[in-house]
């Protein structure tokens, strides 16, 4: 018997394939393609970090944008105001966001369900109010324009990379950072720690009764998710050439949540698919009509009523159906 297609598919390291394919974009695609790819990569990281809470641990955070925002502001302020190199500013953004998540999360994990969602929302609005009003540090409603690109001079000594535009070089950096972060999160989710998180999602009472420190695990997940959201935020501030209070306003939390759900919260790669779909759809739609939110809202309705498992969930059940048909025939 031939090895079945599925076992062959399992042996291919998909992360690596996606990475290599995405890496060729600056050479095979246009400048605009690279622009889109950068945005997708950053959104994907943000959405996957949210899914660590939403899908893996079962925590509905309505304020995940707070940690994205802290990351953007920490990195932006360090690089623009204090001329700190990117190699220090990026980890600082992750640490800052992780620390913010530790402080806020400490209180949030004490609540459940709707109250958890409300408290995460309140904290994200606190961060927004600070960013919006603290003119001396965050630039207030003007934001921090002209965040510099990292110094990528070292790339000019590497063959192939030397001829690229700075925005393309930054894409390469972004892609490497995002892929490493995704790989790290995948390891975390598949580790014993990740299994504990899934146990908590399935049944918190039971998890507590077998001696699991539910709040401790939830807080740890919150901090890890916040840290990775901070990395996404730092990259986004540089990519967008500026950091603005709008990044932290609450509808952004809803937006990343839609990305995650659209892709499917039950699969690791679901939020990545969701991010790519939403970014591309946004660009397509906005070239025809200004009413993107209307389109997004309608997509969301269809999603909720027809495909609650998202794209990845839909694909999986379609594949299962095909396999059963083939097996039966």
């Amino acid at each position, binding site marked *: 018997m031939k090895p079945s297609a599925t076992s062959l598919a399992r042996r291919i390291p998909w992360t690596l394939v996606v990475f290599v394919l995405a890496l060729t974009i600056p050479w095979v695609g246009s400048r605009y393609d690279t622009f889109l790819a950068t945005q997708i990569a950053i959104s994907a990281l943000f959405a996957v970090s949210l899914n660590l809470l*939403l899908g893996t641990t079962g925590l*509905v955070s*309505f304020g995940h944008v707070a940690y994205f925002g802290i990351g953007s502001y920490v990195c932006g302020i360090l690089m623009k105001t204090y001329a700190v190199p990117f190699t220090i500013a990026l980890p600082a953004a992750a640490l800052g966001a992780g620390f913010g998540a530790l402080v806020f999360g400490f*209180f949030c994990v*004490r*609540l459940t*369900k*709707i*109250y958890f*969602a*409300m*408290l995460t*929302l*309140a*904290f994200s*609005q*606190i961060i927004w*109010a*600070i960013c*919006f*009003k*603290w*003119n001396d540090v965050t630039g207030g409603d003007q934001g921090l324009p002209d965040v510099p690109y990292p110094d990528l001079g070292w790339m000019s000594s590497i063959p192939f990379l030397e001829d690229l535009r700075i925005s393309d070089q930054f894409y390469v950096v972004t892609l490497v950072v995002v892929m490493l972060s995704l790989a790290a999160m995948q390891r975390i989710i598949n580790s014993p720690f990740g299994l504990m998180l899934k146990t908590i999602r399935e049944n918190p009472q039971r998890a507590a009764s077998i001696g699991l420190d539910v709040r401790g695990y939830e807080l740890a997940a919150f901090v890890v998710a916040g840290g990775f959201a901070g990395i996404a935020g730092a990259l986004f501030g540089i990519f967008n050439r500026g950091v603005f209070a709008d990044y932290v306003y*609450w*509808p952004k939390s*809803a937006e990343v*949540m*839609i990305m995650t*759900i659209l892709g499917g919260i039950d699969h690791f790669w679901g939020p990545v698919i969701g991010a790519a779909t939403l970014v591309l759809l946004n660009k397509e739609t906005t070239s025809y009509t200004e*009413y993107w*939110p*209307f389109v*997004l*809202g*309608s997509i*969301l*309705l269809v999603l*909720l*009523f027809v495909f*609650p498992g998202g794209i990845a969930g839909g694909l999986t059940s379609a594949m299962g159906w095909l396999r059963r048909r083939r097996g039966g025939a």
Partner: protein
Amino acid sequence: MVDVSLLFGQFLGGLTTAMFLFLIASGLSLVFGVMRVLNFAHGSFYMVGAYLAWQAVHWLSPMLQSFWLAALAAALGVSLLGGIIERLLLRRIYGREELYQLLLTYALVLILGDAAKALWGTQQLSVSRPAALAGGIEMLGTTLPIYNLFIMLTGVAIAIAGWLVLSRSPAGRMVRAAALDREMLGALGANVGALYTGMFVVSSFLAGLSGALITPIQSIVPGMDVEIIVEAFIVVVIGGLGSFWGTFWGSIIYGQVLSFGILILPSFSLFSVFALMAVILIVRPWGLFGRPL
């Protein structure tokens, strides 16, 4: 020396904000208390109410100048919209995870926000103050616009009417029963589905009415929906999600904190109300006047 008239002025301003927010938040709180759905679209209903009031004033103006008729028409229009939405969409997601409920009402925020933009454009619209309520009265050295006084009285009237209906009428008894145990109420033969639709219609009516009533003091702009809903959330969280009187006192606390916060720390008054919301959620998640679920 403390300037009494300034403090009194802030107090009155806070009270106006409070009663106004109570009009909006009471509907939000009722729906949460009975249906356990946190309705993000409540702010959108408020916005639609404002736009409908503007539209009605314009249509009516050749025949008669009646702000009141326009406001009533707007509120009725929004309650119709609310009823349709409850029947078609909301009904299907009761009992599903709160994530899906939040996202459904957020989808409505997106759709209604863009529909309003498509229908009424993005420029600011305004409605002039009804002639009967122009002018103001002098009190302790500050002037209180009569319209603001009217808003306060409306807030108090709605609070008393709501309390009477909830505590004294058969319909109110049903609502309280549904909040406590909806399966049991259904098992006793009550039509819970119709009750839910009715609740949602009343809640939308209140949102539409407050949207119509704000038009003489604030211009109508896109984005007023997402701004107000967060304020309404703060109010219901302070008072206790689902508690009617809690919402009343929650709005008063919110109004005064915002009003005096501006006096003490001008740039951090926004911060202070969110901080208040966070502290209350941490210390008493069910709010100052609510009961643990």
